[in-house]
C-alpha cells in the first residue's frame, strides 16, 4: 500500500521495523499536498522545511536507539485555530492575517515532544464559526468526495486533508460539532474528548465552556492513539481535568461490545435526518447487535431546546472572547476613513468591521444582545438552565445505557452556497452534536457508509458519559471492524483519486 494511504498505526509499524523512515513518509505527504491541495484547499499554510527537519530528527533518534512515542515520526496537520510558535496562525480570519504566534499551544508542545512532524495549518470557518468552511476568509475547502460540496465545518480542512490522503493525522476543535460533523461528511473519524480532557491552552477561544480539541483521523485506533498523546492534565489550563487519560487505546484495540447497552436517542433520529443517513445508521446499529451489544431506547426531551440554548450560550461567550481583537497588541489595524487623528476606539471599531466576516459579526452582536441588562435573564439565564436540563437528560439516559448513538450529521455534504443565505439552516447541521458540548460529554463520529440517494458519506455518532471516553472507542472500533468486513475495506478506499489521468 502506498505510504499516504496507510493509517498512523501502520506507519508507526513501518518505522519501527525499518521499512520506512519518517522523512520518506513526511515527503510522501508533502508531495501529495503539492499534487492535490490546489483543488482541495485543506491547508492555509504548509511548512515543508519544518516538517522534514522534525522527521529527520526522529529518524536520527530512532537510529540512535532512543525510546520513542508510538506516533513519533507520523506527520500531522493542525487546525489553524491552534497556535503554533513560528507558524502563521489566522483562525481563518483576516484580523489575524500574517500573525506568527510567539508560543505553542500545550497540545502542540506535546506533538513536538513526541516527534510528530507538523505539515501545516488547516483551513476552517472563521474562528471556528460555521459548518462548511465557507466562512473562512481565505476561501472554502472542497470535499474530496465531490469538489462541488462542502467538507463540513468548522474543521473542514482537517477532515478534508485526511480524506484526500494529504495527512494521516490532524488536530481539530469541537465547540458544537466542528470535529464530528466534518468527519461525518468526509468519511473520516473524529473525536471530541470529555470537556477538560485535552488542554485548551493555546486554542484561540470561541466559547470557553464548550471548546474542546481532539483527534481527526482515518481509523478509530488512530484517533485513540492521538487522543492519548494530546490528552491529560495541564496546569496552564485551569479547566483541564486532573485525572489520567481514559484507557482509549486499550479499548480501541479490544473492540469489545459484548453485553454493552447501546442507547438510541429518540430525539436524535428519524424525522429531519436524510433517509440514506438514517438507513446507514440503522444498519450500523444492527452490526453492534450482531457483535453482542444490547439496544435500549432512551428519550432526552430537553434536547429539543439544545440548539436554541447553544445559540445563546456560545454567542455570549464569543462576544466576550473576541473583545481581545482590539487592533492594539496583535493582528490587523485599520484606520477609519475620513477621520483625522482617530481615537483608539474608532480604530478598534473600523478594524473589527474590516477584519471580521459576517458570521462572526452576527454572533458577536447576538451575544452582546443576550448579555444586555434587561434581556440577560430571558436569554442567557434561560439558556444556562436549559443546559442543566440537558445534562440531567444525559445523566438519566446513562443510567440505562453505557453509550448513546445517533447519526452524526442530519445530511451528507451539501453543495457550496446551499445554506449561506440562511444561517438557521446552517446551524441545523449540528443538531445532533451540540448536546454533548453543552453537557461536556465525549463524542466520536465514524463513517457508517454512503447514503443511497447521493453516494456520499454518512456518519455514526457515539456519546459516552464524562471521563468514560474509552467506551466510544470500544464501540467505534467494534463497528469499524464489522463495517470494513462488510465493505471489503475502508470506506475511504472509494474516495475519488483527485489526480487527473494522464
Amino acid at each position, binding site marked *: 500500500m502506498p505510504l499516504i494511504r496507510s493509517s498512523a498505526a501502520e506507519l508507526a509499524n513501518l518505522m519501527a521495523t525499518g521499512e520506512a523512515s519518517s522523512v520518506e513518509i513526511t515527503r510522501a505527504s508533502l508531495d501529495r499536498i503539492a499534487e492535490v491541495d490546489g483543488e482541495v484547499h485543506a491547508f492555509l499554510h504548509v511548512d515543508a522545511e519544518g516538517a522534514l527537519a522534525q522527521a529527520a530528527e526522529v529518524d536520527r533518534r530512532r537510529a540512535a536507539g532512543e525510546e520513542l512515542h508510538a506516533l513519533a515520526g507520523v506527520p500531522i496537520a493542525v487546525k489553524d485555530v491552534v497556535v503554533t510558535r513560528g507558524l502563521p496562525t489566522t483562525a481563518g480570519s483576516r484580523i489575524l492575517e500574517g500573525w506568527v504566534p510567539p508560543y505553542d499551544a500545550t497540545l502542540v508542545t506535546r506533538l513536538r515532544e513526541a516527534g510528530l512532524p507538523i505539515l501545516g495549518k488547516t483551513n476552517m470557518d472563521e474562528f471556528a464559526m460555521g459548518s462548511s468552511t465557507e466562512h473562512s476568509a481565505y476561501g472554502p475547502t472542497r470535499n474530496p468526495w465531490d469538489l462541488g460540496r462542502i467538507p463540513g465545518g468548522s474543521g473542514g480542512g482537517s477532515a478534508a486533508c485526511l480524506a484526500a490522503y494529504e495527512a494521516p493525522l490532524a488536530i481539530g476543535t469541537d465547540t458544537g460539532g466542528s470535529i464530528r460533523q466534518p468527519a461525518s461528511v468526509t468519511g473520516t473519524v473524529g473525536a471530541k474528548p470529555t470537556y477538560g480532557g485535552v488542554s485548551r491552552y493555546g486554542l484561540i477561544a470561541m466559547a470557553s*465552556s464548550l471548546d474542546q480539541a481532539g483527534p481527526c483521523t482515518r481509523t478509530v485506533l488512530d484517533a485513540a492513539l492521538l487522543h492519548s498523546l494530546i490528552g491529560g492534565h495541564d496546569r496552564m489550563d485551569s479547566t483541564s481535568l486532573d485525572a489520567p487519560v481514559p484507557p482509549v487505546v486499550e479499548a480501541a484495540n479490544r473492540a469489545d461490545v459484548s453485553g454493552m447497552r447501546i442507547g438510541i436517542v429518540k430525539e436524535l433520529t428519524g424525522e429531519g435526518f436524510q433517509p440514506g443517513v438514517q438507513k446507514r445508521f440503522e444498519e450500523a446499529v444492527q452490526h453492534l447487535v450482531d457483535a453482542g451489544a444490547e439496544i435500549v431506547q432512551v428519550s432526552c426531551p430537553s434536547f429539543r431546546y439544545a440548539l436554541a440554548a447553544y*445559540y445563546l450560550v456560545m454567542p455570549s461567550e464569543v462576544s466576550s472572547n473576541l473583545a481581545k481583537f482590539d487592533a492594539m497588541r496583535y493582528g490587523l489595524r485599520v484606520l477609519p476613513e475620513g477621520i483625522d487623528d482617530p481615537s483608539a476606539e474608532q480604530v478598534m471599531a473600523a478594524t473589527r468591521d474590516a477584519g471580521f466576516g459576517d458570521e462572526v459579526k452576527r454572533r458577536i452582536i447576538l451575544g452582546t444582545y443576550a448579555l444586555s441588562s434587561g434581556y440577560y435573564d430571558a436569554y442567557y439565564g434561560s439558556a444556562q438552565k436549559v*443546559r442543566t436540563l440537558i445534562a440531567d437528560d444525559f445523566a438519566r439516559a446513562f443510567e440505562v445505557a453505557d453509550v448513546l448513538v445517533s447519526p452524526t450529521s442530519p445530511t451528507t455534504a451539501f453543495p457550496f452556497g446551499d445554506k449561506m443565505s440562511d444561517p438557521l439552516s446552517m446551524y441545523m447541521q449540528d443538531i445532533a452534536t451540540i448536546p454533548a458540548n453543552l453537557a461536556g460529554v465525549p463524542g466520536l463520529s465514524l463513517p457508517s457508509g454512503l447514503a443511497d440517494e447521493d453516494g456520499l458519506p454518512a456518519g455514526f455518532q457515539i456519546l459516552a458519559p464524562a471521563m468514560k471516553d474509552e467506551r466510544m472507542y470500544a464501540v467505534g472500533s467494534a463497528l469499524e471492524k464489522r463495517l470494513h468486513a462488510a465493505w471489503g475495506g475502508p470506506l475511504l478506499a472509494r474516495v475519488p483519486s483527485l489526480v487527473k489521468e494522464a
Partner: protein
Amino acid sequence: MAELTRADVEHLSRLARIDLSDVELDRMVGELGVILESVATVQQAPTDGVEAMSHPLPLANVARPDEVRASLTPQEALSGAPEVDEQRFSVPRILDQD
C-alpha cells in the same frame, strides 16, 4: 419578545465596537430577528427551579504553585503588534480631542 430594530442593532454594534456599514446594518436586522425568534424557544423550556449551569465541570477555584517560570521576552510579546515604540505597544490616542 421585543422586536429588534435597526436602532437596536446600531446600538449593539457600538457596544461591540464594530463599525457596521449601512448595508450591513440593514441585512443584520433581518437575520438577527430570525435567529432571535428561534433561540427564544429556550423560554418555553420547563426551567422553574432549575439551577443555571455555566460550565460542564463542577470546579471551584483552581490554584497552582506560585513559581517563577519562563515567559515571553518583551521582543516576543511585541512581535505581533501593529506598531511598536521601543518596548511598548504604540496605540492611537485614547482621550477625546479638546
